[in-house]
């Protein structure tokens, strides 16, 4: 069609394009309205409530306090904002530690597993399916399963391997136990994403490299890794986002009070639900939203991730 269009009549083509654009807007409108309703409105309400002092059970009785939920010091020098709460910063620190360590380990293990199942051998199909089992189990179930394993009186790990140590009792040691659970659970998902990337690499390239006498090691560093970069980065963004808003593992394995000290979302839940501080909890949620936004923007711009 483009070949046959004479270039001398630009006004008419612009007309068609304008008409198409208009049509596209009408087609997009239902989606945009749906997004505004299900995502935009709750977000707006959260930001709105973050500026108020309000109770969850009586949201109608609220007082405007501006940024008081974020930062406020009374005349007696008592700090009331959550940014002044050391427990919040502990939760941020633990969440970041959890994210960095678990995502790094998952990427490394995922890469190794993907490379293994990418090569041809007998029973490869079964193996590819079987490795997804941990990922297919609902997190709440696997978290409960692991907390039994960690139990110090009858757990296979707590009693059997560690001789009666309670890993989950202390939030400092618990974070490593939680990382282990997350790595166990999500490595296979990472492997699957990387495997999809590996499958798209042309095999004749490796044949040529073999002909030129490049070692497998060189092939991995010079060919596989650079070509895999787009797929790998998308996988990294997904996993990092998931890890930053982790909630279920902490809540099930540590209980809600300790979960608040180990994850940002746990802290938000505790403020909002346990303590019914609607304003304060909303402010925390807004902060989590901003933190995750900033990290995503850094990721996408620094590594030039393309989602197409």
């Amino acid at each position, binding site marked *: 069609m483009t070949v046959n269009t004479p270039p001398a009549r630009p006004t008419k083509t612009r007309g068609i394009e304008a008409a198409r654009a208009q049509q596209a807007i009408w087609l997009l409108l239902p989606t945009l309205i749906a997004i505004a309703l299900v995502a935009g409105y709750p977000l707006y309400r959260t930001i709105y409530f973050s500026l108020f002092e309000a109770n969850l059970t009586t949201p109608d009785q609220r007082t405007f306090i501006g940024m008081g939920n974020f930062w406020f010091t009374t005349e007696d020098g008592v700090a009331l904002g959550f940014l002044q709460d050391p427990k919040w910063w502990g939760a941020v620190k633990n969440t970041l530690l959890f994210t960095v360590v678990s995502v790094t380990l998952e990427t490394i293990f995922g890469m190794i597993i993907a490379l293994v199942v990418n090569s041809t051998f007998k029973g490869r199909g079964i193996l590819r399916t079987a490795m997804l089992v941990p990922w297919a189990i609902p997190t709440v179930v696997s978290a409960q399963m692991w907390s039994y394993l960690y139990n110090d009186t009858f757990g296979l790990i707590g009693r059997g391997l560690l001789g009666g140590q309670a890993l989950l009792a202390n939030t400092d040691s618990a974070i490593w136990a939680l990382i282990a659970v997350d790595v166990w659970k999500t490595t296979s998902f990472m492997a699957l994403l990387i495997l999809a990337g590996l499958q798209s690499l042309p095999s004749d390239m490796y044949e040529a490299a073999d002909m030129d006498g490049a070692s497998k090691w060189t092939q991995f560093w010079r060919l596989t890794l650079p070509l895999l970069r787009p797929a790998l980065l998308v996988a990294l963004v997904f996993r990092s986002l998931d890890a930053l808003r982790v909630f279920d593992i902490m809540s099930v394995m540590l209980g809600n009070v300790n979960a608040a000290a180990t994850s940002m979302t746990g802290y938000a839940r505790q403020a909002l639900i346990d303590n*019914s501080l609607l304003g304060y909890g909303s402010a925390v949620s807004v902060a989590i939203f901003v933190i995750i936004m900033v990290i995503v923007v850094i990721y996408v711009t620094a590594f030039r991730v393309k989602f197409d």
Partner: protein
Amino acid sequence: MKKVIALVSLSAAIAFSSNASAVTVTLACGAVGQELELCKAGAARWAKKTGNEVKIFESPNLTNDRLGLYQQQLAAKSSDIDVYQLDVVWPGLLAQHFVDLKGKVPAAEVNAHFKGIIDANTVNGKLVAMPWFTDAGLLYYRTDLLKKYGFKSAPKTWTEMALMAKKIQTGEQKTNKAFTGFVWQGKNYEGLTCDALEWVVSFGGGTIVDATGKVTINNAQAAKALDTAASWIKTISPAGVTTYAEEEARGIFQSGNAAFMRNWPYAWALGQGDDSKVKGKIGVAPLPSGGSRNAATLGGWQLGVSQYSKNQAAAIDLVRYLAGPAEQKIRAIEGAYNPTIQSLYKDKDVLAKNPFFGSLYSVFTSAVARPSGPTKSKYNQVSQAFSTAVSDVLNGKMKGQAAVAKLAGDLNRIKGRGW
């Protein structure tokens, strides 16, 4: 045949008595120990009597989780649940969502209950809920093991308890590796607040926040109480005790793997059950003293009618029935749930089944209340700050002195512009 007759008469009763008035009432029951079965059975008896129907809503085990769920239901003004089972520390927090039972329940019926518990359920003159059963921390011990190791009676002080537990543990571990001296609720949640309040009060360290709302926790006795508890871990209590709630502790004690246990009265009936390995070998005593007094934390559950209920009349009738003497007697006999009606403590059938009810009567009547009154809607935050500080001491992150000093700061922060 009996069943058929019962069924026929039941359906006849429904057909006659109810007609248009038969309604379905939803009751939220707890599920710790035998709670759920007793709750279901009691509700069924009421349903049979009145021709109404009762739907049971199973609540989460941990009281913190329960509160979170209830608050969401109530904030949404949901009519899904008509009757809620409320913890003794919640009336101040949830009062506005419940029907004022004053005047709707006859005064004579209200006055049959312990005055202290009725007071705890009265917020600004409004009777938020009817007491259903009361609770206080108790020390459970193995009578057979105490005898075996030459002890004549239950320990009077914490020091004595620790010595006895150590001796029994050392002896028993020769044949049973999993045996431990003392189990309690060390997980960071409301239960730890109850346990730790008992230690602090028994050492003369006050009640965290006093009746006037002043933060009193930063004192040497409180610090000493927490340090003492921390010294039990890995000596007479397993390392994992800091992850145990009520049921984990009971599991270990009931399978014969512990010499002492701190728990609520409900553990008695289960310990005497046929599947219990320690049946007939359990003794119950007041919790030891830290030098000041024996202290037990007041617990207990109440029944309140939601303001948003569509069947308030039937719901109030259900509450009156369940909180009434007949039902409380059944629960005391079958589940060792402490009645809130004074006269039942003199009832022969109740005492035959729970001999300790009579001898420990003073423990139940003089139990220490958690500071939910003075801290009002912020009680939950106070309790979390307290249990977190205690947890830090138990896990060796902090010494008692430093922990109570930091806690006092945290509590003043939570207090902010006032409770």
